[in-house]
C-alpha cells in the first residue's frame, strides 16, 4: 500500500474508527471505519457535506460521544502513540483542552451564556495546570489579547451575549489555545461568520499555528478554505473516508466522483460556468446506508458492481487513495 506518508512522525493516528448511535430506527453508523493521520505541526483538512460524520469523528477523537452514541469496539485513536480510547476518565480529561483542543462552529452556543468569558478561559487553564485563580485570570486576559481582542482586560468580564460574533469566535479560539495544545480540532470554525471576518479568523489561526507549532485538523464543508490552508485533505462521505490526497493533487486530479462533484460546486473565478453544478440527490440517512458503494445512488458513473460491492480505499498514486471502483476501471468514466 502506498499510503501517503505524513510529513513528520504521526501526532494523531486514527484507525478503523466507528461510531454508532442507537435509535428507534435502528443503529445509525455515523462513522464507519475511518482511518486518519495528522502529523505534528501539520494542517490537515477533513471535508464533507453536513451529516457525513466529520464532526462526530472530531468528537470521537476526544471521546465526547454521548449516549445513545458510542465508539465501536476495534476502533483506535492514538495520540503520540498513546491509545486515547484506553485511557481512564481522569487521563482523558487531562488530554482534552490540554493536548488536544476543539473549536466549535457556533461560538454563541459553545460559550456558556451565564459565565464571564474570562472565567471560561481561566477555568480551562486551572483544569490542567496548578495555577492560582489570579494567574489563570491574568493568562486568560493575555490569551484574549493574543487572539487580537482589543481591551482584553475589560472584555474578559463580559458575558458572551455582549460580544460580536467575530469576537466570540476569537474567545473560543483563545479558550482552545489557552493550554497550548499540540493538536487543534477546528470544526467549521468560521461557518457562522460573514466572509471578511472569516478571513480574519483564519489568518489568526494560521499565525497562532505557526507561533505555537501545533497541528490543526480543519473540518469544513468549504473546499475553498481547505485549498488555501491545508497540505493534505480527507474527503468524507456517509461515514467513510472516500478520498485522501495532498491538497494540490486533490484539486488537480480528484479521483472520486464525489470529490469531483464537490469541486464542481465551488464558484471559481478562473472558469466561467453557466451555473454551479450541485451534486444531485441527498445524503442518505445513517441508519440506512445503501449497499455497495454508498455514493452510487448519486453517482453519474455507477454500474452494477457499485451497487453490490463496497469499494475499499484504492491507491491512485502519489499519496492519493479513493474509495471507488473507477480507480481500477477508469475507462468506465467515459461511458455515461
Amino acid at each position, binding site marked *: 500500500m502506498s499510503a501517503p506518508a505524513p510529513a513528520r512522525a504521526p501526532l494523531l493516528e486514527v484507525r478503523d474508527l466507528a461510531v454508532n448511535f442507537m435509535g428507534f430506527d435502528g443503529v445509525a453508523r455515523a462513522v464507519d471505519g475511518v482511518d486518519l493521520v495528522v502529523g505534528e505541526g501539520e494542517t490537515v483538512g477533513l471535508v464533507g457535506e453536513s451529516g457525513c460524520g466529520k464532526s462526530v469523528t472530531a468528537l470521537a477523537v476526544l471521546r465526547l460521544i454521548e*449516549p445513545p452514541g458510542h465508539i465501536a469496539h476495534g476502533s483506535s485513536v492514538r495520540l503520540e502513540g498513546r491509545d486515547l480510547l484506553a485511557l481512564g476518565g481522569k487521563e482523558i480529561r487531562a488530554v*482534552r483542552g490540554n493536548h488536544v483542543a476543539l473549536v466549535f462552529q457556533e461560538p454563541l452556543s*459553545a460559550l*456558556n451564556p451565564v459565565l464571564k468569558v474570562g472565567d471560561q478561559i481561566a477555568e480551562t487553564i486551572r483544569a490542567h495546570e496548578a495555577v492560582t485563580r489570579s494567574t489563570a485570570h491574568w493568562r486568560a486576559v493575555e490569551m484574549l489579547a493574543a487572539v487580537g481582542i482589543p481591551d482584553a482586560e475589560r472584555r474578559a468580564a463580559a*458575558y458572551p451575549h455582549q460580544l460580536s460574533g467575530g469576537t466570540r469566535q476569537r474567545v473560543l479560539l483563545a479558550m482552545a489555545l489557552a493550554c497550548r495544545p499540540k493538536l487543534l480540532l477546528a470544526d467549521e470554525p468560521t461557518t457562522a461568520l460573514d466572509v471578511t471576518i472569516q478571513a480574519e479568523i483564519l489568518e489568526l489561526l494560521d499565525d497562532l499555528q505557526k507561533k505555537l507549532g501545533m497541528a490543526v485538523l480543519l473540518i469544513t464543508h468549504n473546499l475553498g478554505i481547505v485549498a488555501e490552508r491545508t497540505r493534505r485533505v480527507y474527503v468524507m462521505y456517509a461515514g467513510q473516508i472516500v478520498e485522501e490526497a495532498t491538497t494540490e493533487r486533490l484539486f488537480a486530479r480528484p479521483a472520486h466522483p464525489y470529490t469531483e462533484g464537490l469541486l464542481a460546486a465551488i464558484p471559481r473565478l478562473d472558469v466561467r460556468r453557466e451555473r454551479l453544478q450541485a451534486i444531485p440527490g441527498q445524503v442518505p440517512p445513517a441508519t440506512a446506508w445503501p449497499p455497495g458503494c454508498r455514493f452510487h445512488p448519486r453517482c453519474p458513473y455507477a454500474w452494477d458492481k457499485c451497487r453490490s460491492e463496497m469499494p475499499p480505499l484504492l491507491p491512485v498514486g502519489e499519496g492519493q487513495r479513493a474509495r471507488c471502483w473507477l480507480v481500477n476501471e477508469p475507462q468506465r468514466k467515459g461511458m455515461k
Partner: protein
Amino acid sequence: MLGFAARRLAFAVASVAAVVVITFLLVHAAPGEPMLGTADRTFASPDVIARQRALFGLDRPLPVQFIRYAGNLVRGELGTSFVLHRPVSSILAEALPHTLLLGGTALVASLLLGLAVGALQAARHRSRTDTLLGAATLVFYSVPVFWLGLMLLLVFGEQLHWLPVSGMRSAALEDGSALARALDVARHLVLPAASLALVQAAAFARFQRSALVESLAGEHIRAARAKGLPERTVLLKHALRGALAPTITLAGLSVPYFLAGSVLVESIFGWPGLGRVAYDAIFARDYNVITAVALVSGVLVAASNLLADVAVALADPRVRLER
C-alpha cells in the same frame, strides 16, 4: 429596568385588588349565612342572630357593604371575625408566621430534594437510576397532597410512633430549654412539611431533569467537556446554572401550591396556620376572614412572583443586563 419594575408592581397591585373584589363579591353574594354567634350553641334565638347581622352591617345592600369594606381596607382595617370576635388582622398575624414556617420549610426542602434528584437523573440520563427516580417522581407528582399526608400520618405517626401526629409543639415542654423546644417544633414539623414537600419536590425534580437534560445537550456543555473540565464542574457549574433560572421561576410559581396545600395539610396535622384559618372561615362563612385570607394569599403570590423575577435576574446575566 425602572419601567419594568413599575409595570410589574402595577400588575401585582391589580391582581391583589382583583382577588379582593372577586372574593368579596363571591362570599357575599352566596346563598347561606355566616354562623353568627351560633356555632355550638344551638339555642341562639333568631333575634340574637338578627341583631348580630345588624352589628356586622350584613343587613345593608351589597354595594354599601363593599364600599364600607373597601374604605376600611384602604385604612388598613380588615374588619372583625364574626365567629372569633377578634380583629382579623390579629388572627392573621398569629397564623401567618406558622404557615410561613411550614410552607418555607417545605419549599426549601422540596427545592433541595427536587434539584438533587433532578440533577442526579440528568447526570445519569437514560440509566437505570434515571428510570427508577423518574418513576418515583412521576408517582409523587401524581399523589394528592392530602392523601399523602394521611398516609404519612398513618405510617409514621400512628403505626411506627416515630413522630407526633398533630399540633405544633408538645404540651408538656413549655418549660424546656430553647433548644428542646425548637427540636420539639421541628419534630412536629416533619410530617406536614414532608407531605407538602414530597409532592412539590417531584415537580421540581421532573422540571429540573428536563431543563438539565436540555442544558446538557447544549453545545457549551460539550465545549466544557472538551476543555477537560471534570464532570462535576460541568454538571454543577455549567449545566445547573443554565437550568436554574426556569426552576427559580417555577419555585416562585409554586407558592400558590403551598398555600392551597396548607389548607389541606394543616387541618390533617393540626398545624395552627393560615390554611386552618381559611378552612374554618370557609365553613363558618366568616366573610371578613375569607376575604382577608384571599388578600394575604394574593399578596404572597404576587410578592413571590416578583421575588422570582429578581432571583432569575440574579442567576442569568442575559436577563439582568438586558433590562
